[in-house]
């Protein structure tokens, strides 16, 4: 869940700016049809048994070291129900309306934690984009 929350803003940013680079990860059903199990395992597919040496997609701006690099394809982790829920909650939180979203005040501490992770990574994406503007014609 944490990986999914952290990956989500980067994944969505790549989907907007470099769609072809992440197209295969955005449709798990198609990926399962088009690629053999062994290849998907090498890409750290969340639907398959993990294997040593698998490499999950991550944006070049995603901050991590060897210990904290993603372990699972964001196609899987960003589809987890709680990640989607936290992403929706973030939209409401940005407007100061998280209480309306959850139907009670104060929101459960778990949800707040998840929203804060999304918010932190969304800020990191914005900061990275400002430091690395898109080139003209790119």
């Amino acid at each position, binding site marked *: 869940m*944490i990986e999914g929350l952290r990956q989500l803003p980067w994944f969505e940013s790549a989907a907007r700016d470099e769609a072809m680079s992440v197209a295969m990860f955005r449709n798990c059903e198609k990926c399962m049809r088009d690629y053999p199990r062994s290849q998907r395992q090498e890409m750290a597919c969340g639907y398959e*048994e993990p294997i040593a040496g698998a490499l999950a997609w991550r944006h070049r701006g995603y901050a991590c070291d060897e210990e904290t690099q993603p372990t699972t394809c964001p196609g899987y982790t960003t589809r987890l*129900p709680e990640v989607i829920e936290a992403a929706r909650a973030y939209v409401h939180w940005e407007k100061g309306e998280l209480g309306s979203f959850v139907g009670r005040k104060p929101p459960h501490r778990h949800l707040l934690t998840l929203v804060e992770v999304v918010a932190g990574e969304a800020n990191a994406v914005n900061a990275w984009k400002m430091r690395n503007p898109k080139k003209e014609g790119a």
Partner: protein
Amino acid sequence: MLSPPSAFRTFTICWSRDPALCLPDAPLEPTGDEAVDKKAQETWKEWDERFKRHREMGTINDLIQPGQQPTMFEIKPMSSMAMRRITDELNAQRIGFAVAFALGFRACVRGVVNFGEFKVTTSKHPTYGDLADEGIVNALDQLDPGIVAELGDYCFTRARSPSPK
């Protein structure tokens, strides 16, 4: 009826060995035949991994046998104080894991579907706050003590922190 996991809403889960699921055809208990037991162990390990993925994705429907319905438990996220108190009792060794998981389950379960006429009732416990009454644990233990152990472990693990994935 089936609702995916949520950080704040009630959602539904089922036991990984519910007979309504497409369980693998492998013995659950050791047979004495080493080769058979080893194969069975690997088969159940694969099933557990598969079930875990479907549970975290909220796609348990894909594992249900046609025409069958598993027993579904309506779960709400555990309150912070309940989690803290159970942890403290466990760390102080005033309770063991069996009781801790049962308490974790009772702190979260708020309903059950497809379990005869059974209804979950709740009351306020002086230490742990709102808990489902013991009846649900007693009833499930009649079928298999593993049910409460598995579901309690799930509830407790979720309460401690979000999964790293």
